[in-house]
């Protein structure tokens, strides 16, 4: 479908005035190696830092001797938990109301935990000095298996918390349990299955880091840091360090990928600030890859038990879920306060049935903290995986084609807006059309025929599998009355200034990590004002120069800040109308908008362009009572609801039964994210997410051995998909605008990461003709699944 391909006028530079394919503004610097990433920040007199990390998963610290490190000629300072205790900074609040150790004082609680911070003249010396620090540990038994965390004899990890006698973090539920149980009791078919969404890591190509500079004279703290949410970080620094917020400037330079990894505040960032205060010099800290994988926000780690009920004909009646969530040593998930399990309770997915209930229990283990990261839309990834796997299990039980079962149960277009059994209001959708489109592109019938032939042939190798998933995403948090992080409502500001010559600057609270905001947001304003996108500069990533807002994650940028930009531009347009009317000596009602120009109805010769109006607004034109000069607007957008993009994905795999190797032959993705502002960028976002899904389904998992050693602590062990594992993707689209978003756009950044893993897993299991095994489907896992001895992929291979 090409519903958004309405031709728009072209600017002098050849760009669309408004929506359409436009090459990216940011590319000019990145292609020349002139991006400015965190490690490119250089300041005069800057010192370099490194962190000593725990080699144990659980141990009491009985002594730290830093004297040899301090004696190193190039070392300027060594900071330990004891130093921080003196400053009341040894612990910091997490994004979910827990506390996290900045540098360990009493115990270490996961392998890779921060123990000491060394500041030296150069990075090599800082790392040399780490070797000179002596830490005495008294090892303690580690809680590695989440399923054993609540056993009565499990060691208590968080004995720092008053009165704590076990490892439980919370119990939380959603849905009507009694009604759901009743539906299950009367159902003709009930299928139950256990499944794991393994611990994975966002692993952006750029690791995390910070450069802190406390100017002793002015009292101003400037922090350049890898953050997707600069304003939220500023407030948090004010809270953590007790510094006055107006004296803190957070600068998020170019970000080399985020995917959720750069939402939170890490101990290294806080240490860099302390280091700058202690030494009086700017301090740079950049983590290495192992530190990134072992200590910063992991994602998933959900052990799920699902049960699905249906009639014999395949009408789904209900879904209930029990989840054990492994949050690691500190509850550091980033998500709206009201929802400790994020948006997991959207798990009813894209189908029409009345009964649903979920119970989520979260536990501490001796693993790195985190839990919401990696493009998951606050746990919708886990929810979609659960329901899409359960629907496949049901299809298997009923002997029904999984596409047919889905078609039978998908929500119908006339049901929107649709309120789900757990209380979400889906804004708009045409689900069957998306699935039909995916099946058409795939040639679904033909694929099934090929598979049947292959299966009928005893020498038929490799094994062929076809997997489907259908997802509904919920993105663009708030509204702020329901959604906040640490009390900060999830709304975002935006400021638009049109300069006297008609060129504009747009200031955003959100921060790009590769999504192309500098281009897309200029296009939104261009669409509303009719000025060329090359005449609109997007400013972001600097708290001194942008309005407050909660930042980029959960695919929020277009749904929230995109709406803010559109509304700001619409306000400017309305103000321009008044100014044009004044200049033309007519009533604003006599004017009509023709892209880029207010003109007199019936006399289009008479009109004023936006640049003309902009100049007049700064000039000596006498404006009507109550109308201020200049042409600008500032908006805080509080979304009325989430937007709900959706899509239908089909994956075709070939599995070599001799080696267990899985090859993704084809991947068909039909996405509906509403109107596409820049289709090229949207497709790029989808490509990246599909690779994420293939990676998680086939390669990525962080497992632990019985001592709590992290087995995924480098790119040799934690495998990312390369160009060889990824197929050439086949994309399609449908367009269903969001009724409540000013331009109908729904957000797409995480859709493919959410939607693709179940398609790949369903395909692999279809090839193997087994109902359930856990990802990632490495050759070893596939091999074991084929033997009927599936592996626990969260623990070391026995």
């Amino acid at each position: 479908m090409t519903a958004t391909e309405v031709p728009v006028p072209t600017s002098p530079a050849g760009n669309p005035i408004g929506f359409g394919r436009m090459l990216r503004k940011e590319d000019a610097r990145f292609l020349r190696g002139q991006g400015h990433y965190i490690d490119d920040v250089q300041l005069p007199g800057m010192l370099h830092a490194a962190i000593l990390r725990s080699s144990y998963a659980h141990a009491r610290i009985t002594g730290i001797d830093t004297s040899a490190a301090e004696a190193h000629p190039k070392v300027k300072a060594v900071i330990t938990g004891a130093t921080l205790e003196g400053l009341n900074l040894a612990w910091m609040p997490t994004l979910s109301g827990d506390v996290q150790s900045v540098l360990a004082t009493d115990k270490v609680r996961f392998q890779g935990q921060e123990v000491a911070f060394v500041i030296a003249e150069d990075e090599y010396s800082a790392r040399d000095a780490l070797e000179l620090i002596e830490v005495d540990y008294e090892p303690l038994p580690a809680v590695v298996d989440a399923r054993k965390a609540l056993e009565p004899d499990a060691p208590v990890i968080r004995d720092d918390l008053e009165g704590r006698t076990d490892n439980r973090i919370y119990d939380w539920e959603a849905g009507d349990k009694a009604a759901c149980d009743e539906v299950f009791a009367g159902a003709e078919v009930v299928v139950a299955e256990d499944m794991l969404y393994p611990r994975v890591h966002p692993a952006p190509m750029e690791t995390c880091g910070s450069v802190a500079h406390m100017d002793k004279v002015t009292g101003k703290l400037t922090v350049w840091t890898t953050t997707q949410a600069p304003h939220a970080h500023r407030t948090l620094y004010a809270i953590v360090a007790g510094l006055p917020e107006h004296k803190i400037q957070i600068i998020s330079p170019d970000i080399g990928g985020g995917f959720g990894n750069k939402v939170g505040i890490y101990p290294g960032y806080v240490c860099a600030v302390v280091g700058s205060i202690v030494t009086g010099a700017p301090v740079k800290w950049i983590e290495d890859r192992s530190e990134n994988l072992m200590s910063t926000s992991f994602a998933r780690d959900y052990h799920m038990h699902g049960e699905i009920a249906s009639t014999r004909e395949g009408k789904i009646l209900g879904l209930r879920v029990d989840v054990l969530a492994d949050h690691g040593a500190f509850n550091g998930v980033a998500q709206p306060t009201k929802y400790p399990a994020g948006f997991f309770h959207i798990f009813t997915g894209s189908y029409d049935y009345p009964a649903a209930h979920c119970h989520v229990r979260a536990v501490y283990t001796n693993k790195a903290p985190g839990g919401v990261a990696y493009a998951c839309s606050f746990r919708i990834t886990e929810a979609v995986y659960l329901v899409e796997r359960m629907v496949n299990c049901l299809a298997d039980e009923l002997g029904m084609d999984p596409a047919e079962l889905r078609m039978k149960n998908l929500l119908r277009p006339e049901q929107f807006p649709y309120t789900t059994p757990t209380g979400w209001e889906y804004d708009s959708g045409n689900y069957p059309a998306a699935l039909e489109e995916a099946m058409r592109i795939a040639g679904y019938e033909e694929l099934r025929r090929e598979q049947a032939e292959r299966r009928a042939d005893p020498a038929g190798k490799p094994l062929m599998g076809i997997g489907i998933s259908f997802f509904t995403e919920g993105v663009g948090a708030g509204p702020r009355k329901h959604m906040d992080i640490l009390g900060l409502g999830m709304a975002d500001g935006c400021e638009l200034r049109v300069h006297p010559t008609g060129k504009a600057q747009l200031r955003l609270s959100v921060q790009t990590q590769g999504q192309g905001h500098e281009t897309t947001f200029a296009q939104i304003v261009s669409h509303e004002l009719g000025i060329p996108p090359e005449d609109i500069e997007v400013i972001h990533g600097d708290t001194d120069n942008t309005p407050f807002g909660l930042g980029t994650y959960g695919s929020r940028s277009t749904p929230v800040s995109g709406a803010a930009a559109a509304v700001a531009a619409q306000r400017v347009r309305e103000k321009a109308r008044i100014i044009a009317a004044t200049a033309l000596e007519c009533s604003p009602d006599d004017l009509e908008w023709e892209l880029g120009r207010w003109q007199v109805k019936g006399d289009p010769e008479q009109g004023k362009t936006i640049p003309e109006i902009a100049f007049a607004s700064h000039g000596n034109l006498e404006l009507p009572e109550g109308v201020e000069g200049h042409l600008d607007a500032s908006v805080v957008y509080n979304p009325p609801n989430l937007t709900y993009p959706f899509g239908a994905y089909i994956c075709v795999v070939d599995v070599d039964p001799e080696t267990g190797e899985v090859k993704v032959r084809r991947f068909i993705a039909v996405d509906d994210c509403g109107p596409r502002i820049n289709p090229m960028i949207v497709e790029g976002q989808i490509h990246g997410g599909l690779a994420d899904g293939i990676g998680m389904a086939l390669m990525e998992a962080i497992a632990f051995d019985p001592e709590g050693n992290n087995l995924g602590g480098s790119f040799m062990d934690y495998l990312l998909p390369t160009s060889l594992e990824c197929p050439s993707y086949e994309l399609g689209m449908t367009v269903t605008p969001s009724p409540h978003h000013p331009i109908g756009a729904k957000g797409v950044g995480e859709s493919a990461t959410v939607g693709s893993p179940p398609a790949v897993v369903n395909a692999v299991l279809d090839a193997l003709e087994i109902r359930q095994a856990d990802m990632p489907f490495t050759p070893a896992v596939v091999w074991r699944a084929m033997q009927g001895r599936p592996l626990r992929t969260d623990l070391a291979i026995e």
Partner: protein
Amino acid sequence: MQVTITVNGTETRAEVEPRLLLVHYLRNVLGLRGTHWGCDTSNCGACTVWLDGVPVKSCTTLAAQADGHAVRTVEDLDSGGELDPLQQAFMEEHGLQCGFCTPGMLMTLRALLDRDPDPDEATIREAISGNLCRCTGYENIVRAARHAAAHPTTAPEEISA
């Protein structure tokens, strides 16, 4: 120790620690920060530069090993502001998002295209299999390489931005 390395056609000379990595020589000694660093295990390729015309991972090459040799980095690809056809192709095909892997990808693919001006998709995928990208899913990087093969000289119009 002292090293003399020709970088992007200019002879550079510095007193360095023998253990200094080439990536750090380029970034910190010379201030050429287009070459990135992304892992500790020689897996990601963000640091790819040319050593005597051959792509190498500068995180696993000592500055000392480059002593007396010629290094080429991403900063040398465009000429006087005009993009190399491969850079232009990356822009046209949206072969980059965050841009972090891009310098390494460009250096790997420029070497491929110099060797094989018309590589097919499989050859391109093989060539970049040591360069990780977390953003693009590789699709548009492959397309960019094909585009560059089809348009071996930069089109005269510069992209406005």
